């Protein structure tokens, strides 16, 4: 634990000389460094409950080193830290595959409505009918948007939705006595979470390559399809930002061998109101409410990963679902409550999922846009990506160059130059843009994966492409500008190799705790 008497450098205060500009490389002290014994932010009231005896002395600790600061010190500390950050509220964030769209602030109002904010998941259902109606309606809307017979809101994020979906696929085969099925087909362009979810279940991954147009290689897929296949996990549009031109054939092959199709909904932002994955034949799909439906994310969460299923899988959904348990009439409102699907795989999450942070915000976003508005979202997302592609393809090589969907992947390398994708990404920070995703997907050399989303205007898109074109010029004339970037930030280039090789653990390894 950090000692209060730290030697860390404090930000110089006014009066002791000139204050360096914000860009100066000063380390912000921690709250523990800033702590001073006896300094307080609130005055505790006198106790108004009866006094009681304390537990035995050996159960009490006296060394809890909580920082002691005044309110103003706390506010300034966190304001300083927040100014180090880059967020979708401060600038363009084209992080491919993550759909970092602007999150409308009306969501913040609705999720703080007292009726939502002050409820508890253990309240009797009669007292939380508004919450249940919101969850029920969200289930219904997601069914309609995705083309599904039923939806669970439980999964806590995309990968958790994958795990939930694959559990249902396995349970479906097992319920039919079809126990030979142990393999999952996954293309080489897939998100890493797909094989990870499958591996967690002890199933085997069969990887299929992409063809020269970025589609699933049909020959390899056909060879992989047999009666040991649980199904296939596919992101469409895929991580190259391309809609699979043979999608109907792909699904026909998988269904033909008795397998089920899993749709990774990571890229649903390209399809709203245009194509319903359920209609295409995807039997299961997770939605990322934190990507497509404007729930804030980044910095680790929270995600929200509802899963939709076709009719033949509906009985296997996690319990509980929200349903209407008593129909109303002219005088009485219907009663909403919880239902258990007949062959449920069980509960996937404590309580009911990410209600306030996720469901209320996504509900607000869908309600605000309506069906036509949702279609506009996808059309603008696709238009913006194609505009960037058109402006950049003469400067950056695009290996699978055809009309893209909501994102595309370019190569961050130039003939005869030692500049790499990482250098370009870091240099973009100097131009005050968040870098695109780099080194993913793995099938593109020095990948730069760019997803503008629909919320950016033409001025922003032009400024971003101008910066990337300028950086390509710098790569030829002043490559060290890129190798040493970023130079305008509080901290320069981080040593990622050292950070990964020399881990500093804040706690022990699991084996250290095994005897306790």
């Amino acid at each position: 634990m950090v000692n209060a008497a730290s030697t860390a450098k404090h930000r110089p205060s006014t009066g002791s000389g000139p204050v360096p500009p914000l860009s100066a490389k000063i380390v912000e002290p921690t709250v523990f460094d800033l702590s001073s014994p006896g300094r307080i932010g609130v005055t505790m009231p006198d106790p108004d409950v009866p006094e009681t005896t304390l537990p035995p002395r050996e159960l009490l600790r006296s060394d809890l080193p909580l920082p002691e600061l005044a309110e103003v010190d706390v506010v300034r500390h966190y304001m300083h830290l927040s100014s180090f950050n880059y967020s979708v509220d401060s600038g363009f964030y084209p992080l491919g595959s993550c759909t970092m769209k602007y999150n409308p602030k009306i969501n913040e109002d609705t999720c703080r409505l007292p009726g939502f904010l002050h409820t508890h998941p253990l309240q009797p259902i009669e007292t939380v009918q508004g919450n249940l109606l919101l969850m029920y309606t969200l289930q219904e809307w997601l069914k309609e948007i995705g083309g599904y017979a039923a939806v669970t809101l439980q999964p806590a994020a995309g990968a958790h939705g994958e795990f939930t979906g694959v559990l249902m696929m396995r349970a479906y085969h097992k319920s039919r006595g079809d126990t030979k099925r142990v393999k999952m087909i996954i293309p080489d362009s897939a998100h890493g979470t797909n094989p990870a979810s499958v591996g967690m279940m002890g199933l085997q991954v069969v990887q299929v390559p992409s063809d020269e147009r970025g589609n699933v290689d049909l020959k390899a897929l056909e060879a992989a399809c047999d009666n040991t296949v649980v199904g296939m996990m596919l992101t469409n549009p895929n991580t190259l930002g391309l809609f699979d031109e043979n999608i109907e054939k792909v699904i026909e092959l998988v269904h033909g061998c008795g397998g089920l199709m899993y749709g990774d909904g990571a890229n649903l932002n390209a399809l709203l109101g245009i194509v319903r994955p359920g209609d295409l034949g995807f039997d299961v799909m997770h939605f990322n409410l934190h990507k497509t439906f404007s729930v804030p994310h980044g910095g680790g969460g929270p995600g929200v990963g509802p899963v939709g299923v076709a009719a033949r899988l509906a009985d296997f959904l996690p319990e509980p679902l929200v349903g209407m348990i008593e129909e109303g009439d002219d005088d009485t409102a219907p009663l909403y409550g919880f239902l258990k699907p007949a062959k449920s795989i069980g509960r996937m999450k404590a309580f009911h999922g990410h209600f306030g942070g996720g469901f209320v915000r996504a509900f607000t976003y869908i309600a605000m846009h309506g069906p036509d508005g949702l279609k506009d979202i996808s059309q603008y997302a696709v238009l913006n990506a194609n505009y960037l592609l058109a402006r950049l393809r003469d400067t950056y090589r695009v290996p699978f160059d055809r009309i893209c969907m909501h994102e595309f992947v370019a190569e961050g390398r130039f003939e005869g130059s030692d500049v790499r994708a990482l250098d370009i990404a870091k240099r973009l920070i100097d131009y005050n843009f968040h870098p695109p995703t780099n080194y993913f997907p793995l099938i593109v050399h020095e990948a730069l994966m760019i997803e503008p989303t629909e919320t950016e205007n033409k001025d922003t898109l032009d400024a971003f492409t101008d910066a990337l074109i300028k950086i390509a010029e710098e790569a030829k004339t002043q490559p060290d500008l890129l190798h040493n970037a970023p130079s305008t930030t509080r901290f320069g280039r981080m040593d990622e190799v050292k950070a990964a090789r020399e881990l500093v653990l804040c706690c022990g390894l699991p084996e250290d705790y095994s005897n306790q």
Partner: protein
Amino acid sequence: MNAPANLKYTKSDEWFDPATGAMGISDYAQSQLSDIVFVEILVEEGDTIEAGKAIASVESVKASAEIYAPAGGKVTAVNKGLSDKPETLNSDPYGAGWMVKVEGGAAGETLDSAAYEKHCEERSH
């Protein structure tokens, strides 16, 4: 790139030395992965492995990769030092960066160095 003529190679970038039974990852593989930061060997001395089985897991700052046995056989030695010095795979992939040695086994589907170099060349474009 460097692919010694005495070794056999897989399309998934592993090498196998028929003379010593040693196996590891190719120079092309280490350069594509860039700085390797983590290695875990998944087999132990005495195990019998088949060609194509995952023998190690490798992570770089860019990606993680499973390493598949280019040949089967009985494992006679495992390079235990690699986990403390994963950078050895970058600096000496065919020497100190060997991963596993086997005996009495058969190579799976492998290429000679000329065919392997061509395979790498094709993928660089």
